[in-house]
């Protein structure tokens, strides 16, 4: 294949990877402080996309206003889920939390299915995202560039919060040793809510981007993305935000570029993320950038 097409595919891969990255950040942050794999996280992406759709089509808001609605709505939903379903189980064995998360995920998917039906809805893509750019013989939509750039900016914002604000310190401390943190007088529940809000907001942004790139919004759209994003978080190193982004790019990139080289493998596209996951668990369970949580307790 010629270099031009290869370059085109690489940019597509980075674009896809950014969306996985946005969702992966949320997974990794929640896991970091709560040791919980929030199965419902991928579905928050779906809710974000639906809220955006609702904002533009029904409320007839301009795009950015609808996006803000999606972000705040999802953040609120994230906090709500935590308070209702996860908080009562703080002291329970982890298996209970995991099962509850699965229940929440199923609940979100199926209630949206009942409310809106399974037929995909056309997401009204804003014009600025759909402009075709031609560079040499490469053709792109503006969205292909906007997504990775915004992702990196948001990564920067999260890192800023984590390392330069007092809430960030609290979050990192909580990930390290939750018992001592509470003894220090920090309201752990508030911090958890902040983490859920941040993670969900990012997932909503991911959802909007996803809807822009693939303008069909339906209740199951978050399932595969969510799973791959979790695999990305583990591959990059669970607990590390930069790792999550790295993992996201790796998986997205691989999906697009490998299929470009080997189209016969088209049917296996979804399996790559899991194969990476198993490989990482076999050879470097802490991921590329991560540190071993179990060890840091002692």
């Amino acid at each position, binding site marked *: 294949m010629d270099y031009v097409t290869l370059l085109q595919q690489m940019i597509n891969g980075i674009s896809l990877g950014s969306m996985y990255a946005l969702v992966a950040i949320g997974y990794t942050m929640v896991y970091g402080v709560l040791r919980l794999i929030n199965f419902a996280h991928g579905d928050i992406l779906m809710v974000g996309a639906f809220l955006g759709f609702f904002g533009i089509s029904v409320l007839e808001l301009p795009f950015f206003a609808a996006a803000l609605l999606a972000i705040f709505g999802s953040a609120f939903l994230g906090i709500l889920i935590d308070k209702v379903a996860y908080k009562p189980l703080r002291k329970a064995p982890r298996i*209970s939390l995991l099962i509850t998360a699965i*229940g929440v995920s199923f609940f979100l998917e199926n209630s949206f299915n009942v409310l809106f039906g399974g037929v995909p809805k056309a997401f009204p893509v804003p014009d600025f995202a759909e402009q075709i750019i031609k560079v040499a013989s490469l053709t792109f939509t503006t969205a292909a560039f906007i997504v990775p750039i915004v992702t990196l900016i948001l990564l920067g914002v999260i890192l800023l919060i984590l390392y330069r604000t007092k809430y960030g310190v609290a979050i990192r401390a909580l990930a390290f040793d939750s018992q001592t943190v509470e003894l220090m007088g920090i309201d752990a529940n508030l911090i958890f809510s902040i983490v859920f809000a941040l993670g969900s907001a990012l997932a909503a942004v991911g959802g909007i981007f996803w809807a822009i790139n693939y303008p069909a919004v339906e209740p199951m759209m978050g399932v595969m993305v969510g799973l791959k994003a979790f*695999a990305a978080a583990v591959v990059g190193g669970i607990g590390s935000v930069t790792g999550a982004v790295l993992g996201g790019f790796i998986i997205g990139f691989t999906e697009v570029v490998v299929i470009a080289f080997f189209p016969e493998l088209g049917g296996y596209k*979804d399996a790559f993320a899991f194969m990476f996951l198993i490989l990482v668990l076999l050879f470097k369970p802490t991921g590329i950038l991560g540190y071993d949580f179990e060890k840091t307790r002692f």
Partner: protein
Amino acid sequence: MIKGFAGRKGVQLLFYALTIWFLWFAQTTLDDYSIRVLNNIAIFIILAVSYNLINGITGQLSLEPNGFVAIGAYVATLFLLDSDALEYQYYLEDPSSIVLLMHTKSFIIALLAGGAAATFAAMLLSFPVFRVRGDYLAIVTLGFGFIIRILAINNPQITNGSLGLNDIPDHTNLYWSGGLAMVAVTVILNIIYSKYGRAMKAVRDDEDTAIAMGVNTFKIKTIAFSTSAFMEGVGGGLLACLLTSVSPDQFTFFLTFQLLIIIVLGGLGSTTGAIIGTILVIGGAEWLRFLDEPMNLFGWTSPALPGMRMVVFSIILILVMLFAREGIMGKKELFDYFKTKKPKEKK
């Protein structure tokens, strides 16, 4: 019989005899629909009690049943289809030679083959998966389920791809499914009341202490996982023969979710709980069909809301986890209640 089972041998035998009589009665007198539902319940009992072994007894949250059931179903099917059936069925590509080699007329061998294949996969999976503790197992097994489905779809020379395989001889009747269910329950209970079972519970309750006490947790987890896989594989074979067809779309996460809700409702760690849970969920799903239709509430008719059933199930799961985490039976078995409380105390 079952070791450590409270109560006399006589009681156990009576129980078995009653069940066998019930199977005979149902198979000969009930109509096709009821038999079908009972078959479903029996098969799901096998799946549920074995799923409970890894989840409830050993405490490792695994989401793999749809994968192992799929393996068992496909392998058993491939063994049971004779060459004529294979010739006209393989629509997309000609069957690979391995497939043509596998053949048997015996139902039980096909089932055992299905179970064996699933066990093999489980043992392979044990290596990466049990090296890391806890939560990763869930995601990896979930991914494994996906990969199995993708493999089934993309290898039409073995599985006939998304078309699946049809006209499987329908060997499954209540004697097989009920009988195997009894065997499964007996075996599981025997394991639970043996030293392996105690070790599994130790791993569940406090893995670090178990290691300190010299338990080889890796071995125990692998045993639980593999046994679980074997029975799920056998269950898969039974399912394939009940439906007389097998295709990739049957083995999605939804199957695992159903099993999960069954054992949670019945009580994680209780085998009799799993049986009760199966009857409630599988039987209840039929009964709860009315939720999908228009309902008349105090004179106001709600429109048909297909899919409401699933919403209700997920809410039940969440509520059970929040308020009744022990489920119906908790960690106890039904017969624990009939144990030593003889003349003096009433239960």
